[in-house]
């Protein structure tokens, strides 16, 4: 009876997942960039990075999303004197990625600080170049410390994707809304949406656990 709606909701799930993955990739880049900006000497750059992170972390996700979707449209249209539209998907990736990134930068900073200085010195002593030290010594070890934090951020991000439906992206939530209002069975369909989110977050949790075990495979207690 409802199979059509259920297929639409499952198709919407793919949109939700695509959005989450894109936002996570963008957010990782933002986070690494933010972490490196916060650790450089130049105080001006450091403080502006830190305050930008502080601002984004303090604002409701909804406000960040609306600001990027509606605000950026207004700013761009004013600048170029004709109406410019950014798609809901792009706005969602930008907003969720920025939020993810501003939290991730703290995770990365902590992770890189947790790598023993002696490791870097050993790399220098062995004649590694700066870049080699980063990719072969710092990154693999920082990764181990970053995984739990990043895993939590991923779970938060998955749940935050629901708000992108409010700017009209046809994600899972939006399909559930359509089904709910057409059939007059809002409880059934929102519960279905909740169940799908639960399944996705549970599977993610399992995968994060596997990653954690894998990243710690050379560590002996």
């Amino acid at each position, binding site marked *: 009876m409802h199979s059509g709606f259920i297929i639409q909701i499952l198709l919407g799930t793919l949109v939700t997942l695509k959005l989450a993955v894109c936002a996570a990739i963008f957010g990782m880049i933002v986070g690494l960039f933010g972490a490196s900006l916060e650790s450089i000497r130049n105080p001006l750059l450091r403080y502006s990075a830190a305050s930008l992170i502080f601002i984004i972390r303090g604002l*409701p*996700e*909804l406000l960040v999303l609306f600001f990027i979707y509606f605000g950026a449209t*207004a700013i761009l249209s004013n600048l170029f004197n004709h109406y410019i539209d950014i798609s809901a998907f792009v706005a969602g990736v930008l907003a969720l990625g920025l939020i993810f990134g501003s939290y991730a930068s703290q995770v990365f900073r902590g992770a890189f600080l947790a790598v023993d200085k002696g490791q870097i010195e050993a790399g220098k002593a062995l004649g590694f170049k700066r870049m080699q030290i980063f990719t072969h010594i710092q990154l693999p070890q920082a990764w181990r410390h970053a995984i739990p934090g990043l895993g939590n951020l991923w779970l938060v991000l998955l749940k935050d994707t629901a708000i992108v439906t409010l700017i009209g992206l046809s994600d899972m939530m939006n399909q559930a809304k359509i089904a709910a209002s057409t059939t007059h069975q*809002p409880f059934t369909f*929102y*519960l279905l949406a909740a169940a799908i*989110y639960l399944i996705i*977050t549970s599977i993610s949790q399992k995968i994060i656990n596997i990653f954690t075990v894998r990243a710690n495979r050379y560590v002996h207690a």
Partner: protein
Amino acid sequence: MINILAYLPQLMSGLSITLILMLASVVTGLALAILMTMASYSDKWLLRKFVDIIVFFIRGTPLLVQIFLIYYGIGQFAFIRDSFLWFILREPMTCAIIALSLNSACYTTILLQGAIASVPKNEVAACEAIGMSKWLAFRRIIFPRAFRLAIPAYSNEVIMILKGTSLASTITLLDLMGMTQQLIGETYATVEFYLAAAVIYLLLNGIISLIFKCLQKKASVYH
């Protein structure tokens, strides 16, 4: 460029709704969290499982879905629409408070469980040694101790609630976010009003952090 200050009264009325939502959810959420934490240490298997399931459900689903489930979803059942509960559950305000406080209760339960686990073992052993019952030890020793340990993390939780209140605008409430949206609809001053709302949210954040810094100082006076 329009004069934002002229719209300050409307923004303040939005702010008042946001504050009511936040305070009500913080108080109810904390009370629920304490009950749920106690239930999770109960001897009854069913009670413990019940708490686990609620926490699992709430932490695994978006707040927006929970708000929609309560506000739009509950009305699907005729027996609720016919009962006295409908007077409460048809109001967006109470639905938002229920969703927000349930949400915060579950996250706070996890936080409190962690804090209780990090109460030094010898203090718990001391309670047993002088013959305190389980609940007396909980009330006098473990809980006060755990609260102190949980304060820094709890301040983040309160800020999460503040950020969560903005979702109440999706069920027709004119909180700070809803009011901002409405004013933008009237004036087309998109950027200006979003910036004004952002400043107010950041100020609230600052105030919450300050309050918790004071609490933290008060709580650590014996250390």
